[in-house]
Structure formats: structure tokens, C-alpha cells
């Protein structure tokens, strides 16, 4: 999760006065617009104001910018060099305060201990380099699937660089994404009871020579494009307004988690959208939902795997293994004892050098998968999130939930949440597809009672990161 949205109460609708203090519009604003959007030309500012003032716009709960001056905007456009990056990266990690007690013992990558979310939570300052430029620090928050949110130091240039990474990946898929100030460059969509919503210029994504006075809406003549974070939840933004706003702003790219992307398939909403591509992240994108999005919009769906702690790790544009990015990221797998898992399934452990404020060595993601090769490059097959658990049959045999995923995917389910109780019985909440078929298969595999609860949409499984599999003890 990318912000405090994770702190929102569960999915059930509550009284309107449930508004959490930090969702009161403007309550978290601390910067001036000049700090937020340095060197934003007047024409671009007018453009931004026109989007903010759109009659069907949502309540803008936040005012957010990229904070980059022109030199930083340029730097963020370029991927950090990766030639022989690992030795210098490990040097930086060795010098971290958290590693002081291990000095002299950390030679090769293998010597570095595995670190986990708990260690970051206990001593986040110890994982930030002593010489880091803290003026570039902004607060990130990682919810994980369990436990309290972890406050992380994000680097403003690194955050902006993600935009250019997505741009580069889409270019590789043949997506011709050029700045068009008449459209929103990007809509980042969420679906939750309350959320931060904002509009911001996209750093460096500027049409050459402006847009030639494009149109009646007073859009920027200097070519600056904008992005918006939008909440698709009708409790927060009436559907009629959503449709009117999206029709006018016509986002080029739509990025969201699977639950929010599924909302785009509602016919009246889908009818006004013409995306060049769709980007999914944060949660497992099922083949059925990918197919539905691809079919409806006729564009590539990029599935990006990453953690807030590590930044983006891998991607795919089909249902095959995730390709590990060619950025400063290295993926290993380890078994339950922390030993290399080889070709077997294991926990993904990531060494990540994108965020200069949080250089990580051998970070346990809590996610599981198998390391394979795809086109001669490392890739991750059978990726399962932190909810990775085993269910048990009536005879006491452990069943990997990957098998259950297979049944559910074959049945065309868009999303699900399965809970096995202490008595062995299973409750399956499933959105889309033919869940009866999946339930029959699961019943046969586990020889346990399976109670099926069909829900209309993925979002009905809950906001945030609903667990796909849970075993109660």
C-alpha cells in the first residue's frame, strides 16, 4: 500500500462521521505549493487548477506534489546505472548503523543475515545510511497483510523514477505513451471507504512545444501533464460524477490494485475509458481478471510485483512467471530454515538498491515463489503473497494453497478469500467465475466441508489487502 489508506476501517459502511482525522481535506498539508511543485509554470498551474475545479471532481483530500526541482526531475527520468551495482550497494549496507555489530564479518552477499519487516520496524533509523540526504525523505507506509503499518523513508527522486520505470516497461510492450496534456497521463485508482485523493503534475512528462492550445477546457499550453489519485468507492464519490470526470479527463494509463481495477469493468464506467494500458499492483491479479480487462479495453495489462520496502521487483504482461526487473534488484529464494531453496519453492528474499534512503540486503518479503528462467533472465513462478499457508485434508495431510489457487483460477474466479477453521471446515468467499465448480474440487481435494459465499465484486471481499487464504488455529 502506498499510503495511510491502509488505516481505513474495514469494508462495512459506517456513518458519514467516521471520517478519520487525516482524511479531512487538507489536514495533512504542510508544504507550500512552490515546495510541492517547484518551478511549475503558470500555465501548468492553471491546468492543474482546472482539474481540481472540475464540477464532477471528487473531494480532494490531499495536496501532493513530486517536490522535485528541474535538475531532480531530469535525474529521475534516468534509471540508476546497474553495471556492477551490487558491490557498492553491499558496501553501503555494511556501513548502516544496524549492521555495526557485524562489521568485518560481511564479505559476500551470502554473509549478510536475512532481515525482515520486524527488524525494520524495530530500528528503521538503523537502516538509513548515515550520509543520506534526509531533505529528500518523505514518509511511506507499508501495511503488509498483518500487523501495524510500518513507516518507511521514501526518496522523492526514487518515487518519481517509478513513473519512468512503468513508462519504459510499457514501451517494451509496444505501448506508445506520449504526453498529451488534453488527457490525464495517469489515474491511480483505489477503492476504499476513504482515501487520499489528489492531482499532481507528472515530473518530466511534458509535451514538446505545448499542446497547441488544445481545447476549450483551458488546458496547459506548456505541455505539462497531470496525474490524479481517485477513489472509485461510490460511498466516497458518486458514480455519476466518477463517469463524468473520467469521460472528460480520459486517463491514458490506469493503475490500481485488482479490486479497484475490477470496478473499471462496470459497463457505464468502462464505456468512457480509453486507456493505453493498465497497470496492476499490490495484490494477486487473477488470470480471469486479467483476461476481462484485456478483453474489455483491448490493451496490455502490466502486473507489477513489488513491496514498498524494496520498490518494484518484477513484472509480467501475461500469466507466466514474473520477470525480475533489470533495475538494482536481486531475488533469492530460501526455505523455512533460511537456506537457499534452489529450484524449489521458497520465500522470496530481495536485495534492493533503488531507494538511497533504504538500501536493503536480503530482505525477507514474506512472499513465496520459485526462481526460474524466462528468456534467459531470472523470473519468479508461482508467486504467492504473504498469506501463503497450507490447508489440511480430513486425513491430516498438508495441501499447498497453490493447488487451491489452481482450482479457483480454472473456474474463472476474479478474486477470493478462503478460511479454514480449526475444525477443518472451509468458508470460501468468491467473486466471479463458477465458484460452485471450484468448491466441488476443493471439497474433493480436502475431504472437508466447504461453505460457499458468492460475492458480486472483488472489492466485496474487503478493502486493503484481504487475505486470499487463512487457516485458523
Amino acid at each position, binding site marked *: *500500500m*502506498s*499510503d495511510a489508506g491502509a488505516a481505513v476501517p474495514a469494508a462495512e459502511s459506517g456513518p458519514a462521521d467516521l471520517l478519520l482525522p487525516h482524511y479531512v481535506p487538507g489536514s*495533512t*498539508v*504542510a*508544504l507550500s505549493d512552490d515546495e*510541492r511543485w517547484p518551478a511549475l509554470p503558470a500555465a501548468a498551474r492553471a491546468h492543474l487548477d482546472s482539474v481540481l475545479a472540475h464540477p464532477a471532481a471528487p473531494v480532494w483530500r*490531499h*495536496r*501532493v*506534489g*513530486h517536490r522535485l526541482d528541474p535538475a531532480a526531475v531530469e535525474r529521475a527520468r534516468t534509471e540508476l546505472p546497474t553495471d556492477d551495482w551490487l558491490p557498492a550497494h553491499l558496501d553501503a549496507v555494511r556501513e548502516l*548503523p*544496524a*549492521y*555495526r*555489530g*557485524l562489521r568485518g564479518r560481511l564479505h559476500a552477499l551470502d554473509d549478510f543475515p536475512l*532481515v525482515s519487516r520486524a*527488524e525494520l520496524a*524495530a*530500528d*528503521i*533509523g*538503523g537502516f*538509513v545510511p*548515515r550520509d543520506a540526504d*534526509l531533505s529528500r*525523505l*518523505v*514518509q*511511506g507506509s*507499508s501495511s503488509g497483510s498483518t500487523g501495524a503499518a510500518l*513507516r518507511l*523513508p*521514501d526518496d*522523492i527522486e526514487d*518515487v*518519481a523514477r*517509478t*513513473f519512468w520505470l*512503468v513508462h519504459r516497461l510499457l514501451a517494451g510492450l509496444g505501448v506508445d505513451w506520449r504526453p498529451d496534456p488534453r488527457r490525464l497521463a*495517469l489515474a*491511480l485508482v483505489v477503492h476504499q471507504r476513504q482515501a487520499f485523493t*489528489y492531482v*499532481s503534475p507528472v515530473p518530466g512528462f511534458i509535451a514538446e512545444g505545448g499542446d497547441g492550445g488544445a481545447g476549450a477546457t483551458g488546458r496547459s499550453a506548456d505541455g505539462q501533464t497531470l*496525474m490524479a*489519485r481517485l477513489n472509485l468507492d461510490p460511498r466516497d464519490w458518486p458514480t455519476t460524477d466518477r463517469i463524468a470526470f473520467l469521460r472528460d479527463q480520459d486517463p491514458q494509463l490506469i*493503475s490500481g*490494485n485488482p479490486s479497484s481495477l475490477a470496478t473499471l469493468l462496470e459497463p457505464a464506467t468502462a464505456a468512457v475509458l480509453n486507456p493505453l494500458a493498465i497497470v*496492476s*499492483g*499490490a*495484490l494477486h491479479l487473477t488470470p480471469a481478471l486479467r483476461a476481462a480487462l484485456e478483453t474489455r479495453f483491448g490493451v496490455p495489462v502490466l502486473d*507489477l510485483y*513489488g*513491496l*514498498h520496502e524494496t520498490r*518494484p521487483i518484477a513484472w509480467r504482461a501475461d500469466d507466466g512467471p514474473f520477470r525480475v526487473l533489470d533495475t538494482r534488484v536481486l531475488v533469492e529464494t530460501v526455505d523455512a530454515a533460511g537456506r537457499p531453496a534452489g529450484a524449489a519453492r521458497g520465500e522470496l528474499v530481495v536485495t534492493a538498491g533503488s531507494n538511497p534512503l533504504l538500501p536493503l540486503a536480503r530482505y525477507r518479503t514474506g512472499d513465496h515463489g520459485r526462481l526460474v528462467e524466462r528468456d534467459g533472465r531470472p523470473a519468479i513462478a508461482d508467486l504467492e503473497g504473504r498469506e501463503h499457508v497450507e490447508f489440511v485434508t480430513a486425513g491430516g495431510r498438508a495441501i499447498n494453497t497453490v493447488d487451491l489457487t489452481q482450482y479457483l483460477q480454472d473456474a474463472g474466479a476474479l478474486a477470493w478469500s478462503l478460511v479454514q477453521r480449526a475444525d477443518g471446515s472451509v468458508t470460501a468467499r468468491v467473486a466471479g467465475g463458477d465458484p460452485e465448480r471450484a468448491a466441488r474440487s476443493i471439497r474433493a481435494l480436502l475431504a472437508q466441508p466447504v461453505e460457499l459465499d458468492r460475492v458480486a465484486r472483488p472489492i466485496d471481499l474487503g478493502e486493503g489487502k484481504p487475505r486470499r487464504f487463512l487457516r485458523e488455529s
Partner: protein
Amino acid sequence: MSDSSGVGAGAGGGDARGSSTLGGPGPLDRWFALRLDETRVWDALAPGPALEVVQTRISSAPQSFLAESISLRALTGDVLAEAPEHVRTTAAAIADGAQRDPASRQGAALALWLWASHELLAPFRPELDVRWAHSSIGALAFRLAPLVEPRRWLADGESREEAARLFLLWSGRTPAGEDAATARARWERRDTIARDAALRELVADEEHRRRVQAALAEKRAAEAAARYSHE
């Protein structure tokens, strides 16, 4: 209390954070866990008793205070019976944290002896302010004792001066006849941490951690930056 002493809200031993997370415990972890602000304390000092008086009292500590069998928790309760609630609570937590480690136990006991000597021998002149009791106990138990054995405070003049100066500092006092600048210069010549590069690095690490925590907590940082994908 915290306004005048620079003492933060942290209680002794109650902070789960270990500074040397990955390399096992470090010698100053418990001191850092008290979250006392070593830079601010210098701005909060009032004139105190003569250094020699404090040193002499350290030398004359009764053996019973140094015995392995001593219960620091009980001793703290007795010596600080008249102290404000939060001072007693924090001091009790420090006592619990120091009890199992011989050096820290003796360091805390010697600090408690200095506070007890007010009644058992004679009041310090000027009198100490009991609202500072816990920070002075924490400093001797967790800042000095892990580095310089309390037995040496008794046997060695320089170590005794270091202990006495540290006690006065964390009691919010300058030694009689010294202004803050003089007291600070003389302290830094005696301070084991200041004279040891590796220990200085530990302190610098800790200051860095606090800067990061403060930067993360700033409202400016909380405003975040625009994002482009979900993670």
C-alpha cells in the same frame, strides 16, 4: 520534569528496540533506550555541589550497596520514597534492567547511594533536585558502568571524577565553581565515550537514528509525494 531536565518519556529497559539489531546487543543499548537527550541537558544545568564532595561520597559508599544480593528495586523504593510518581516508576524500571548485570547493578547502586547520602550523611549544598534522580541513576548504570567497572570508580581517581561529573550532569547540576562551558570541556576530557572512536561511532549512530525518526515524524514528510503505482 522533562521540560527542565531534557529527560524524555522513555522508561528504562522498557524499550524493545536494540540499537545493534543484527549484531547482538551493544554496550550502550540500554542507555540509548532511555532516550535521554545528551545535547539538551547542557542547556538545563543549575549550579551544584563541589565535585570533590561527590567524589568523596563515591569513595565512601557502604559495601552493602555493592553486594550482589542487593535488590535494586527495593533500594530504589526506599531511597526515592519521596520522589514524584514518574521518577519512581522510571527509576524502578532502570533498577529492574540493571539488576542482572553486575556492572550496571553496582553503577545504579552507587547512584542510589549518592541520593541516599543526602539523608544518611548530609545534604548536598546546594541540594539536588529529586526530579532528576532517575536520569542520574540511568547514566551511571547504563552509560558509564558498561564501559568502566564501578569498582574502578572507587579505586581510580580519574574514573571517580568521570562518575562524579556524569552524576552531576544527569542530576542537572554543574560542579561548584564551574560554568556550563567549563564543566563541559572538563567532562569531555574525562568521558570514556569521547575518548574512544568506536564508542563515538555508536553515539553518532544513535543520533542518526533520532534524526531519521524525527524526519519521518515531520508533517512535511507525512505529506508524502505523488505516486504512480501500487505496491
